[in-house]
């Protein structure tokens, strides 16, 4: 008798959409259960769009968007958000860059003012640029250069898998490129990509839709209309021959390996893509998952293994080309070849023998919890909806994800596993160079 499945609950977050005359798309998702709001502005430009010779520029530019704008001095943005009881940040992804605040709801108009002001134009000065190049270099030192496994695998695997600059290059950037950046580059980048027609504004939480709509019109309505630039074609052919590289990390004490396989286009072929999202969890979510049970608990050939979609762990906010990734850390003297062989064996077993009774249902129930938990903060709701609007014109998809994940069938998961063959795989191995 098959195991009874947990019913997957649904959320009913509203998604009010409209577009201003200047092309700015807006999504409102009210929720009055707590007196807080999330405000997100997402621009359709990311690491893949930065010019050659300017690696890291999209991220550097993100920093410059906090350095003052038309009516705001340097430091003013931070002070106005935090002085309203809120927090802020921004982040640069492969396909988009986001800017966001979460605040008590009495600061709605202030947050809209701040975002509109920098959408009209940041203050790009030589002094601020040099200061933020220094800050970004320290960020790279903290996250990559001064620690073991820095940039593994999100910076070290793309150049193995991809051949073209947009997909393969280091999105944090080289120090040489960062130092070569100019104010003119920044002005050009802003003109090209930070257009009202290339942005989405999302506001979530304790708002009244009519009032928020009026305030958005007031603050963003006169942002000059500029159209979205044409999005380049970033496609690359799939691999037909296995690729594998290794590098020594002089700070790492233990070996590690990561592999990636291309997956269907997440936007154009969402139905074909979803089974891979589920597959990653069947393989690696917790002690009852395939690879944890086999590699960690039984064979003890790895100390940890993880699987996810997208180089930045972003299953629903990345465009093609993207990948399913597996990464594992090995014990001292661990054998990477053996680990990869066992992964192949487990994928083959999954594709051939299918799933066990209840295996898919419990994985999907757990995924529902993760998806719901992710959207509990009003801010993530705004961010996710903004990107879903930008990439798919469908912010309400956020409500559907737990159910859609739950509808993926065993046959689809098996078929997805069957595509993860060694000849389509790109792998990168970390050779420990640590003194220990």
């Amino acid at each position, binding site marked *: 008798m098959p195991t009874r499945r947990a019913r997957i609950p649904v959320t009913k977050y509203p998604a009010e959409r409209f577009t201003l005359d200047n092309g700015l798309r807006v999504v409102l998702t009210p929720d009055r259960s*707590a007196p807080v709001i999330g405000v997100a502005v997402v621009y359709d430009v990311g690491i893949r769009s930065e010019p050659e010779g300017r690696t890291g520029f999209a991220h550097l530019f993100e920093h410059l968007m906090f350095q003052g704008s038309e009516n705001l001095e340097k430091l003013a943005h*931070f002070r106005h958000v*935090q002085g309203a009881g809120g927090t802020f940040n921004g982040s640069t992804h492969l396909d988009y860059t986001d800017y966001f605040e979460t605040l*008590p709801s009495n600061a709605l108009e202030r947050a809209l003012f701040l975002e509109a002001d920098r959408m009209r134009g940041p203050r790009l000065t030589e002094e601020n640029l040099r200061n933020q190049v220094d800050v970004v*270099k320290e960020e790279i030192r903290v996250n990559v250069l001064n620690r073991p496994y820095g940039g593994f695998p999100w910076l070290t695997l793309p150049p193995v898998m991809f051949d073209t600059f947009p997909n393969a290059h280091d999105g944090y950037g080289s120090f040489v490129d960062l130092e070569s950046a100019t104010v003119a580059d920044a002005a050009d980048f802003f003109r090209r990509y930070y257009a009202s027609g290339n942005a989405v504004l999302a506001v979530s939480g304790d708002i009244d839709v009519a009032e928020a709509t009026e305030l958005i019109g007031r603050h963003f309505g006169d942002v000059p209309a500029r159209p979205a630039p044409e999005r380049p074609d970033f496609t690359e052919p799939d691999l037909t021959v296995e690729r594998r590289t290794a590098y020594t990390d002089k700070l790492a004490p233990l070996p590690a390996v990561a592999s990636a396989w291309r997956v269907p286009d997440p936007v154009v072929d969402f139905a074909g893509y979803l089974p891979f999202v589920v597959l990653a969890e069947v393989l690696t979510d917790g*002690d009852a998952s395939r690879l944890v049970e086999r590699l960690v608990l039984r064979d003890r050939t790895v100390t940890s293994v993880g699987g996810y979609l997208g180089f930045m762990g972003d299953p629903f906010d990345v465009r093609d080309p993207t990948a399913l990734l597996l990464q594992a850390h090995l014990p001292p003297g661990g054998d990477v070849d053996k680990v990869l062989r066992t992964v192949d064996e487990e994928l083959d077993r999954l594709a051939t023998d299918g799933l066990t009774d209840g295996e898919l249902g419990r994985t999907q129930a757990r995924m529902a919890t993760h998806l*719901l938990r992710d959207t509990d903060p009003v801010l993530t709701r705004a961010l996710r909806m903004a990107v879903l609007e930008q990439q798919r014109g469908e912010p309400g998809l956020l409500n559907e994800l737990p159910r859609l994940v739950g509808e993926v069938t065993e046959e689809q998961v098996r078929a997805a596993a069957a595509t993860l063959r060694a000849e389509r795989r790109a792998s990168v191995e970390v050779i420990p160079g640590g003194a220990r």
Partner: protein
Amino acid sequence: MTATVPTGPRALPPLGPHRKLKLPRQAERTLGNGLTVIAVRRSAVPLVELRLWMPFGRAHLARGAMLAQTLLSGTETMSSVQLAAELQKVGGGLSAGIDPDRLMLSGASLVTGLDRMLELLAEVLTGASYPTGEVTTERDRLVDRIQVAQSQPAHLARTALLKRIYGRHPYAVQTPEPEQVRAVRPGALRSLHAQRVHPADAVLVLVGDVQPERALDAAEKALSGWNGAGHTADLPPAPPLEPGPLLLVDRPGSVQSSLRVALPAVPRTHPDHAALQLANLVFGGYFSSRWVENIREDKGYTYGPHSLVEHSVAGSVLVAAAEVATEVTGPALLETTYELGRLAALPPKPDELEQARRYALGTLQLGMATQAGLASLTSAYAGNGLRLEFLAEHAARLAKATVDDVAEAAARYLAPARAVTVVLGDAERVAPALAALTPVEVQPVKA
């Protein structure tokens, strides 16, 4: 969409009226076995968060770490894989963590799975069996994890700082050495579990789309059979900070230095706490602070400096932390000392205080606005003998702290003369500049 077009510079819109802090609906019950259960309603998503805090002071370091690593590795009737699979069925998961104050089990599941998650929690609490094979596997994994941690500068700096602050107190060493972990046997874990994993003084927090009374009933049904009259162990009070030479921990080849400055602090309930929190914000506790604006936004020495009052059961401490470029390590310390000294010696400006106050009050609201945030806050409070009602009291204290109160707190707690400073970095390159500012004592990374 039409728009009004203002001319000239645009003015910052004012804030709307401040919303008063509103506490969520909650209920509390102490079960016959001594377990306290607190249930809080927040219904935004159909989930429930779980936090179980068990006092664990003075536990053997390596055995405690291994107990947390293997608590979910199986019971008399279930393997680790079965446990994980049963939890998954209700969208659930549990994980265990330990620090010198407590053993913590945390998790979340679909709200429809609350009963089942509690049953499985009870299964683990009353029946964890520490099977030999699993213990062996987890021992190796923990040793590997410690090795990786010991290659991280942030971990090494933290380790050195704790030792320097706490001396012989149990807080001084929080990560066991690999050889200590290798010596832990399953029998020792079963004994430790029998002695210390019991309901007296433990607090279970459930937060989510639940009716609080109904959640208490569910907890009582599942957990009233959890017994065991083990002992509790009170931690001695943390020792006061003893300022001395800057401790420079040599990590040759570092491209950054990890700067850590510890200062005295007081517990949440102390009359000075609200003023200290505000003083810390003005100094370095948020982005719009003097320290961050100085060493990041003006000088570009660092990416993410931050300063935080850390509360533990046996005492509180303020820690300012920054990873700074090797070549500016001396200057970064100079600016840090300057900003501390400036605030300790001169009162903050009224608008600086107002900005910090609004941040403190606003982020209280933000912290309560998610199930996970509310669960962690409720649990941290309860582990220190407080309830959510304290939030309102704390908010009132934040609201009325004056410039004088904050200046006084800064003079008392932020004075650089009282600081204990540790720097982890390439000693050969940074020692001369540091020694020009303060006496320096160098030690190798593995002392």
